């Protein structure tokens, strides 16, 4: 039985975990299945509809181009807090009613906040799409934010932070590693926000955020399912068409806050109650800016695949199975983001081995790869997985909508999906070696280790690094 948790965060830790599980973050779409239809409303709302007629259901997602990357110091976490507050009601749909009506329509609903975006979704029988649009469009502009509701919900968010970060040693390591790896770029801040910022957040912070970013000209509506594109467009026109656009900074004009070049290795240690140590190494790396002309991000994806794309990939084979230095280990990289990227190596040492042993072994694997390159066989294997996983993803309407929304909200296009699959297929062994050589280097490396503490010992401020009641 699964539990529906509103407001999940696509945190860095999770992204790495996902990358490890699915091995590669590869986009979908091949000629036979590519059918998205694009519309634009006069108020600037972009609508993308993808037909999938296998089941009489539909998913509707609205993506706002505002995430933790757009937050300012002192108000970290406000994008996510507002996401929680979006369920607290409007004049026409009072608090709690949104969820009740979707539930009574047999629907499922939730929302998630990322570094680059905030998204809300409903999944229901196709005949109930108008209800989803009616409710979602209503709260785009008519949200009522009260002090009373805010004071309860901010407590929920703090509990969420305790659950997902403060009491989760690996998540804590990733949070502190990002804070160290980035000096200037907002990716240094956790999506959920620092505890002290949450403690000092007020309803007006959420209101300002809402007024600033929630507008049709900052949103993308993605609908996937057993629908007719023109009918969806007519519905969107009916429910969203009357909402006025607002003056806001378009994606391309927001301040880049480019991270200054790192000029030497950074190291940090995090103490937390645990048994096993943990190591994570992050190297600054680029992300896709132009899906057609860039090549390095594709080569980095393939590099991650060669290292950790399947059970027989290098890291698992060498370090877990043969040399038995690691209990588990992996590599991760995500090529799509508004901001800069990072290439990760991480793992848990076997008993009797240290994080230092594991770091040496991981460095050894990278040196070997840079020296000898990768084999055609390895590369072909990763490419076969690219092809297969791109077909497998078509089985999930949710995932199809996710891919479209993610690309669109970071400034790429759903049309790039086609290009990306082709470009991944075109990566050469030499290109993989080249990006490894160029980006996997000490000067741009941050190393974070978990130093496990016995449960019996009381830790001063293990966790938030902020004030505690």
């Amino acid at each position, binding site marked *: 039985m699964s539990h529906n948790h509103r407001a999940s965060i696509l945190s860095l830790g999770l992204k790495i975990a996902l990358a490890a599980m699915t091995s590669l973050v590869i986009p979908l779409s091949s000629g036979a299945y590519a059918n998205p239809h694009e519309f634009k409303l006069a108020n600037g709302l972009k609508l993308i509809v993808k037909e999938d007629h296998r089941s009489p259901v539909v998913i509707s997602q609205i993506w706002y181009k505002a995430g933790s990357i757009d937050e300012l110091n002192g108000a970290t976490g406000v994008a996510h807090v507002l996401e929680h507050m979006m369920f607290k009601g409007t004049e026409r749909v009072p608090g*709690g009613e949104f969820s009740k009506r979707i539930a009574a329509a*047999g629907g499922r609903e939730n929302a998630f906040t990322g570094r680059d975006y905030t998204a809300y979704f409903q999944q229901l029988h196709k005949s109930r799409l108008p209800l989803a649009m009616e409710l979602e469009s209503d709260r785009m502009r008519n949200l009522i934010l009260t002090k009373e509701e805010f004071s*309860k919900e901010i407590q*929920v968010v703090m509990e969420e932070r305790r659950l997902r970060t403060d009491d989760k040693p690996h998540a804590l390591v990733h949070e502190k590693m990002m804070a160290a790896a980035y000096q200037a770029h907002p990716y240094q801040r956790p999506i959920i926000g620092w505890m002290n910022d949450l403690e000092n957040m007020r309803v007006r912070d959420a209101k300002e955020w809402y007024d600033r970013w929630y507008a049709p000209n900052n949103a993308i509506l993605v609908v996937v399912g057993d629908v007719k594109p023109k009918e969806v467009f007519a519905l969107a026109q009916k429910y969203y068409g009357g909402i006025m656009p607002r003056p806001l900074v378009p994606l391309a004009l927001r301040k880049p806050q480019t991270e200054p070049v790192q000029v030497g290795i950074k190291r940090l240690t995090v103490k937390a*109650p645990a048994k096993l140590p943990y190591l994570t190494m992050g190297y600054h790396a680029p992300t896709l800016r132009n899906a057609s002309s860039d090549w390095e991000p594709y080569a980095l994806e393939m590099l991650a695949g060669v290292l950790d794309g399947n059970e027989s990939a290098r890291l698992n084979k060498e370090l877990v199975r043969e040399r038995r230095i690691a209990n588990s280990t992996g590599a991760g990289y995500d090529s799509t983001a508004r901001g800069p990227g990072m290439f990760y190596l991480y793992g848990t040492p076997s008993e009797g081995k240290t994080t230092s042993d594991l770091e040496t072994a991981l460095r050894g694997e990278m040196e070997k790869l840079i020296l000898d390159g990768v084999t055609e066989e390895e590369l072909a294997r990763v490419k076969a997985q690219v092809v297969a996983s791109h077909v497998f993803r078509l089985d999930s309407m949710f995932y199809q909508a996710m891919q479209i929304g993610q690309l669109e909200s970071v400034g790429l296009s759903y049309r790039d999906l086609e290009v990306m699959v082709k470009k991944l297929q075109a990566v050469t062994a030499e290109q993989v070696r080249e990006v490894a050589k160029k980006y996997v280097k000490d000067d741009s490396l941050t190393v974070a280790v978990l130093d496990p503490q016995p449960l019996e010992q009381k830790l001063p401020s293990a966790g938030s690094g902020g004030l505690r009641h």
Partner: protein
Amino acid sequence: MQVTRLLVVLLLSIYSQLALATLPIQLWQTSAGTWVYFVESRGLPILDISVDFDAGSSTDTPETSGRANLTLQLLSLGAGGLSEDQIAKSLADVGAELGGRFDQDRAGVSLRTLSSTRERNQALDILGRVIQRPEFPEDVLERERTRVITGLKDVDTKPDHIANHTLKKMLYGSHPYGLRSSGEIASLELLQRKDLLELYQSRYLAASAVISIMGDVSRVEAAAIAEALTQDLPPGKLNVTLPAVVAPVAETRRIAHPASQSHIILAYPGLRRDDPDFFPLVVGNYILGGGGFVSRLMQEIRQNRGLAYSVYSSFSPLRQEGPFEIGLQTKKEQSEESLRITQQVLAKFIAGGPTQKELISAKQNIIGGFPLRLDSNKKIVDHLAMIGFYNLPLTYLDDYVKAIGKVTTLQVKKAFQRRIKPEGMVTVVVGAVEKK
């Protein structure tokens, strides 16, 4: 109430037009006696297969705890003359994904592959070796045993795992459902290759296994696939008897932990797969704590008081009574208050049952949302595996919707009163406030 009742009837009729006839399950037996559940679907070039065995963690004893899990894990790490590396490469070369499913009752192996000939044949060849000719190499066993033990040492420090582990033991006592699925360090250290082989030979039996096939193949192709996957399974059929689950000794255990939150779980024996109270309890649970943001627990704990991010109640139906659980996490200082409110919500629900309005909303969601449970090949193959493993009727999914539609408030109230004893529950609080 007439209007709202009409709505349920309407929903039911919409459902029956749109979804009912959409899952034509074909059923037959292979020559080895394995039942095959098949749904043909040509929408995507994908083939999903699940092979399920009666070899879950309830086959363990305190002395062999962890054996069933390790046996399943080792299937793909050396089989049919191929090393673990050859198996992994062969699957990866065609982009196929091999997975596992493991709980108290079941050990299952699943395969997802492209349906094109080369990819499909190569992936099926591997699956055939893995389930029919596993080798359990000594050195792989050594390594995996160490990895599992190391993992256990780590999770034994995590509050959610401590809570779960402690609770299951309190709930089930000496019943095998109380054993940890991944085992205990002491028992794992003693397991030998022959123990794994013995479990395989006695539990991965052809005539007790169930194969579920979903996707882009014909009935004829599916039959050939099922034959090839079962002809070399150990022959025979199981006669499974699990001891009955008895009511636990009521107890609340508080365990110290340095985490900032307390993890609280309350539990009682819950549902069997063939339970006569199945539908009233499922509908009631939706209202109490299963229905996402609209449940009573969510309302009282999260929406009204901001005490927790997540609070839920759940049934996990098994061959015998699987656990009924209520869980939440909250900062330590408010753990006793949260536990008290949770107990109050439960007690009130059991004493008074749901309102008519709540019942209607629950039915609307469960019935109206039913198509979402079958909207992908993956979800369908999982349903096939469940129907097959528990020997449920082929009309199970249709019956389910009809049965939900018939549940009354009185049935929910009576079923909860009969089955869940608030005063008899076991409760665990990990991260209890330290005494000063």
